[in-house]
């Protein structure tokens, strides 16, 4: 479904990663691990078409999407990708429900409210629908961010350290929710330094010195 072939990312004189190749199919999960600063998040951004690789290509459903026009990439992200960022990235003035509906608004899709409420219910957030982000704990914010990522039922979920700052119980619950997604046919790519979380993935890659060091 999503494949990266020999992709490299270079900032000035610094090579973040070099000629990395990996792929993921529907129903699979891929964990990217590595030390802090090893380029995991940058790799996720390139896979999610948020960043251009300096070299190599990214294929989605067999098509080389690296060369697509910026607008086409935006539409692709909106329709097929769901992002869970390292930080929850909620808009302070919007309620929980409104935050979740942002991708739907950008896609000009009406009638997503019911679906949003269902997702919030699945994440145990049904009583926080009208709350503003500052009224939520970090764990609750993360769940809102996850709800936003899965609202439009994207084919690929890209999650960057989704269990950061969470207590072990909550981290386990979030992990459980995420790893349910491949069972429904989604592809899940997550960046984490939590090895116990990574081990639940069907594939694990480790970035070492800008190269894929270990593959499972």
């Amino acid at each position, binding site marked *: 479904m999503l494949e990266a072939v020999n992709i490299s990312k270079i900032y000035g004189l610094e090579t973040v990663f070099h000629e990395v190749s990996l792929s993921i199919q529907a129903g699979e999960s891929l964990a990217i691990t590595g030390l802090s600063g090893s380029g995991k998040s940058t790799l996720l951004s390139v896979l999610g078409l948020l*960043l251009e690789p300096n070299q190599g290509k990214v294929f989605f459903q067999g098509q080389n999407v690296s060369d697509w026009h910026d607008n086409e990439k935006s539409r692709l992200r909106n329709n097929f990708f769901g992002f869970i960022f390292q930080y929850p990235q909620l808009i302070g003035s919007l309620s929980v429900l409104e935050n979740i509906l942002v*991708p739907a608004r950008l896609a000009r899709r009406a009638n997503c409210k019911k679906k949003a409420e269902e997702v919030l219910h699945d994440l145990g957030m049904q009583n926080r629908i009208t709350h503003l982000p500052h009224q939520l704990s970090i764990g609750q914010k993360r769940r809102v961010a996850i709800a936003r990522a899965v609202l439009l039922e994207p084919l690929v979920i890209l999650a960057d350290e989704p269990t950061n700052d969470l207590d072990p119980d909550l981290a386990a619950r979030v992990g459980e929710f995420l790893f349910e997604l491949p069972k429904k046919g989604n592809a899940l790519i997550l960046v984490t330094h939590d090895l116990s979380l990574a081990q639940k993935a069907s594939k694990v890659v480790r970035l070492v010195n800008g190269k894929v060091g270990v593959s499972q």
Partner: protein
Amino acid sequence: MFSLIWHSIIRRKVLSLSTIATVALSTGILFALYLLNIGVSAGLETGKSRLGTDLLVVPSGSDVNPEDALFTGAPLNVYMARDIESEIKAIPGVQHVSSQFFTQTLSEDCCSLSDATRLIGFDSDTDQVLRAWLKGGIKNTLDPNEILIGSDIQGYSGSEAFILDNKFVVAGVLEPTGTGLDYSILMPVESARRLARANPYLKMLYWDKIGNPEDLISATLVKTDASYPKERIAEVISGLGGVKVIKPSDVLQNVKGQMDVLFMIILGVGLLTAASSGFLLFARFYALVWERKGEWGLYRALGATRRDLKLLVTGEALLLTLAGTLAGVAAGGVLYRSALELLQKQKAFPFIGPSLVPALTGAVMLIVLFSLVGLLSAWFPASRSGRIEPSKAMAIGDID
């Protein structure tokens, strides 16, 4: 998209309201100016075509202000000997004369008017001026108990009016002239004299001192032969003594000059305010794009195109300017009434209130103009927002 724009406006209430207020102020000034300008222009144009007289002769001893005499309906109790009419008629170049006798109602005496109003007695046999202003269907000669009313006096043909305890029937309503006739009541000259003579208040003030109303006139309207210079005829009339000659066209020209200066000043202020609104909008949206990089980045990451971001910024600008112009048009209407009242207290000038169509046209033009200003002001910042990379979203926490 609209929801995102709306939330952006709501979450910056003070900034949004101040932007709306600035746009409203500019729009309000320009709209009020526009209404005043078309009212005065219409008044001047109509006055020019409908004053109908080349020279207006009034007593010289009285303190007659030409603008008051021509453009207000305030009482003007000035009198001169009736014989002057025949003397003027004899002057070469004078084509036609018709005299009028002015008196007045008392406060709250007539026609729902709270202030005393000018009553004009005119000679329907010689008058050539009023006929031009009469709406169709009015007979040429009025009965003694019939009156004509100016367009700004409440009443309609067939309605009754009590003036100085006498019952009259409204025989017709004059077309708007933009002059004092719009606020005056006209009746046969003999009726006016009869009313004036019978009123003890006026008797004590005037008739006991200056003579019988039957021997007096207040003004003579003079039509000149086009082949004679008006200025020369005016000099000859002035030479008769005891009279002052007013040239309505000169008065109109003078008023126009004064109004032009006033409107230029107000227009300057309005345009400066409009320009400052443009700068304010530019500053606001430039700052908005700069401060919200994280938010734009998030939208881009979640699938917004560059065009979507431009739409968010320009949409917000458009909504704010629309709200501002709508508020400004409403405020402009109020400002127009207040300014008109203030100006008319300071100076008499011809004025015909704008009708609905030009007023609406002006409002729509201002709305379109300010919407364009809003869009242009936001265009550059909007273009900047489109350049923000989606990867910006990766490194930021919550977005306020």
